[in-house]
């Protein structure tokens, strides 16, 4: 159905309430949203919830989407805001008891040529690295370093200035690398 239309045209149609085009948009971008939500929340169920809530929000607010920014940036903005709310609403800060096995798994991961982890393993590793970071630093680190978004995109998504994003990123990297070095010692 959508073969003869380009992505921007389909998004435009979905924006004007065409359900089949919107379904195409969901199928196309659901994975991006899931991956970023999973990395931020380190929880598969919550990530699924964010995917659902994000697309419902997109559908309801599609007319507010301004074509001057990339659709994915706008979509990420919605998803990341939902993740941020979830992070803040967690009653207690997520703490995990670090065991020797967990550390060994994390530190030996670079020797794993396949780089294939289960969702639980992956969530555990990201948690180990980022659990002590404040929510904003965590989100910025994940978006920039794990999700490979540009500084400009991260700034647009978070609504922060580029310099502020860079500063937060530097703090986050420092904290994580120092922690890793400590564990290596």
């Amino acid at each position, binding site marked *: 159905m959508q073969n003869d239309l380009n992505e921007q045209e389909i998004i435009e149609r979905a924006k004007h309430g065409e359900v089949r085009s919107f379904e195409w948009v969901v199928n196309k971008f659901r994975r991006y949203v899931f991956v970023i939500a999973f990395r931020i929340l380190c929880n598969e169920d919550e990530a699924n919830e964010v995917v659902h809530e994000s697309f419902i929000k997109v559908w309801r607010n599609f007319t507010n989407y301004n074509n001057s920014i990339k659709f994915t940036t706008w979509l990420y903005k919605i998803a990341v805001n939902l993740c941020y709310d979830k992070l803040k609403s967690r009653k207690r800060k997520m703490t995990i008891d670090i065991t020797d096995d967990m550390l060994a798994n994390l530190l030996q991961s670079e020797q794993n040529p396949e*780089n294939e*982890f289960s969702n639980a393993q992956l969530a555990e590793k990201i948690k180990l690295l980022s659990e002590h970071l404040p929510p904003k630093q965590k989100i910025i680190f994940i978006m920039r370093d794990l999700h490979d978004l540009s500084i400009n995109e991260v700034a647009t998504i978070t609504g922060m200035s580029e310099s502020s994003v860079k500063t937060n990123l530097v703090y986050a990297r420092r904290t994580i*690398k120092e922690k890793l070095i400590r564990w290596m010692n």
Partner: protein
Amino acid sequence: MNCVDINKILLEEYFDELPVQIKMKIDEHISICSECASVFNKIIRADKIICDLKNSEPVFAFEDMLTESIMNEVDFKKQTFFQKLIDSVVISMQKPTIKFAFSVVLIILSSLYIYQEYDAVVKINALEKKYSSISYSKAQVFSKTAESAAWLYQFYKYFSAEKDFVQVTDKMIIIRKEQLADLMKDFNSLNDAQKKKIIDLRKELFPDEKGLMNKEIKIDKKEVGKKISLLNSK
């Protein structure tokens, strides 16, 4: 470049992403500084761990189920009539042009309503002033029955060619009895055939002549029109 600089760079950036010149300087330094070389190896391992996480994506097991649940919520075909209606109104109201058009229409309608109300108040005030000196014994005020009395105005207008015996506003009709006398004078000046026509009509329309001004008159305007045209055609 000293040990502090190198430490700072390596902790804040990824070695692989550094410019070649800086990489060379770091290489030069660690070849002569064993302490930095040890830190460098650990940071490279740390970079690799982060890089591995970057390359590992979680398995999205429920993607089709999620799409289905999202589409169930937005798909009009699967929604009830009211959900569809609410959704379409909400969606259309969010479009800037619709918002603007709706605001304009709302402003125009509100202005018209306010103007009409104001106009009616002004007219009623003027009428009240005009007839304030006339007691109710001389004037008959139809307010609640304005609609049923409105045809009366048309009826007399038909015969009298708009005499000044009646005032009509949106809200009320005021008929002055004393001016009905003028109408009777006009009536008396008619010839017998014309008088007969009107008398016949009056008998037909108002069997109870006394109640004409004091009772609510319920006669269909269309019926009156028909009867008048029947009389005229005789």
